[in-house]
């Protein structure tokens, strides 16, 4: 980028704020970050200037109100690059579960004064409303991912799209396959890498929080889950959770079962 420091904004939509913590968790690298960029807007950390023009906007959260759509379009206009971070921004997040539920019933039963609720019919990932330059998946994303994308953008190169399956990271760490050795319904074979096989590393099956990997065979894995004695609803829940608007997982969830195996 230019000789002057790049300007960075971190915006938030419907989300838990957890992905923004990947910046704050940088530790000593925060000092290096401040040497490289000026943080113009980052409400969770302090700086407020949401209207400013910036080089890179990081966007957390999904779109769930009409006001969100207006605001994200403004952000697009003011940003050279937009990078979305996390399951909400890239694939709807947990709140996209309402896309497959009776929304009005929920609003009536949850809120004391439902007449004040103004929400979109469908929760949307950011890329459904604006052009997104790069997407970082994960629930939440981690500091390693944020650092890698920042380095690439500051160097003027396209960030590496990590799209392999979790199994690759899992086997590189020599974890014993939880599905084969213990019969756990692991989502690793269809889930995108990036977490460092966190759950298999502590003896748990992957639950798919990074969304779908490239070339994910959800039908075959769903079929395997049935053989592991999961019923149709349980298989559905494996696929539709953190990434409710991930088209590959959503489609697998709506089928509920695989045809093969």
């Amino acid at each position, binding site marked *: 980028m230019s000789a002057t420091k790049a300007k960075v904004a971190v915006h938030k939509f419907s989300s838990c704020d957890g992905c923004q913590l990947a910046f704050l968790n940088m530790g000593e690298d925060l000092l290096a970050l401040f040497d490289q960029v000026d943080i113009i807007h980052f409400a969770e950390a302090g700086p407020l200037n949401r209207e400013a023009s910036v080089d890179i906007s990081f966007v957390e959260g999904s779109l769930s109100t009409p006001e969100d759509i207006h605001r994200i379009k403004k952000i697009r206009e003011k940003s050279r690059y937009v990078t979305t971070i996390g399951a909400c921004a890239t694939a709807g997040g947990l709140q996209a579960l309402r896309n497959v539920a009776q929304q009005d019933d929920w609003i009536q039963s949850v809120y004391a004064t439902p007449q004040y609720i103004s929400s979109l019919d469908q929760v949307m990932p950011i890329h459904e409303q604006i052009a997104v330059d790069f997407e970082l998946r994960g629930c939440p994303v981690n500091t390693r991912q944020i650092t890698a994308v920042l380095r690439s953008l500051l160097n003027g190169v396209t960030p590496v799209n990590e799209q392999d399956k979790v199994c690759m990271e899992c086997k590189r760490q020599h974890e014993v*396959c939880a599905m084969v050795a213990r019969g756990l319904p692991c989502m690793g074979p269809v889930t995108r890498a990036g977490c460092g096989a966190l759950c298999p590393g502590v003896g748990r099956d992957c639950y798919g929080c990074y969304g779908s990997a490239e*070339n994910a065979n959800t039908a075959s894995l769903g079929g395997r889950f049935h053989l592991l004695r999961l019923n149709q609803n349980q298989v559905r829940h494996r696929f539709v959770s953190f990434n409710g608007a991930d088209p590959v997982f959503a489609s697998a969830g709506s089928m509920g079962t695989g045809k093969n195996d």
Partner: protein
Amino acid sequence: MHSPLRNFLPRNNFSELLTALSDGGYRCLAPKVCDGAIVYKELPSQDTLSTGISIHQAPGSYRVEITDSARNFGWSNGPQGLKPLVFKSRETLWSVRRDTNGQMTFTESAAEPDPVAIIGVRSCDLAALALQDKHFLNNHNRDSHYQTRRASLFLVAVNCTHPSDTCFCASTGDGPTAQDGFDLLLDELDDGFVIRAGTEAGEKILETLPVDPVAPEQAEAISRQNQRARECQTRRLPSRNLEQALFENLEHPRWRTVAQRCLSCANCTSVCPTCFCYSEQDTGTLDFTRSEHVREWDSCFTQGHSYIHGLTIRADTKLRYRQWLTHKLGSWHSQYGRSGCVGCGRCISWCPVGIDITEEVTAIVSAET
């Protein structure tokens, strides 16, 4: 290569072998049950080997059972052979630093010699190691990282007496008994081990052990159990060179049906003791002063593996599975003078959906047999 059956090491003297290896400067890796599978773990001095482990393998399934058997090696194999010890799943090849004047300094990383004795190596994994040697230590392009680690190995092999249902080393000619490639070779009996050396280093260790002569009935028992291990294997690969047969069947409908099941998750290539594909990338610090060039295990089942300058050559699973099988069992012959499969059966057991390489290849070349 190795001497006849002469030396019997009683079970209660087995610790003498571990002591001799330790005195010889080796740290010992021994099989342990960890997270539901056999893995090689460092054996602390004075510790003993696990006993009574029994392994049940089937397509997509691996289960451990602990029995009251006194034997240490009455099982087939774990998810990994020797590959992770010589070809690291992730390692830095070189790094670069940039000083305040913008001057860059490149430093090559070197593997440190680390003498290590592996207890309980199977013949399939010795055959796989010989294949990895052909790849990483070929005369034109020696991999120094591999070479250093390879030279650090002391291999205590055991003739396999309990192949799993997924094993087919007898049909590939790589087991269940070891022919060469070991420093020491054990045949396990209920009351101890017949032990022989395959190298001078092995001979040196063997000389220090309190051994007894081998009784004729012990030699017969060994012969019987080795034959049983061979005959109990039900899976098999066609033992001939399949290169032509596979490449004549590139449009066989079976590629499509196996691709419907295949997750392209790369578990098969990760556990395969001969697969050697890797990718390289750079990881740098945020202040742009340091960067590391890292090599890590890759697989022909990933998109990146066939990505060349804007084009993904093998975008779908059918092409990826076909690449793997036609290389492993076909073009490997032209490349290394033999098939790339040693019959360990890991790709069958550790495939989450239980795809069986012997079944697939048989279906694909069946018209040719």
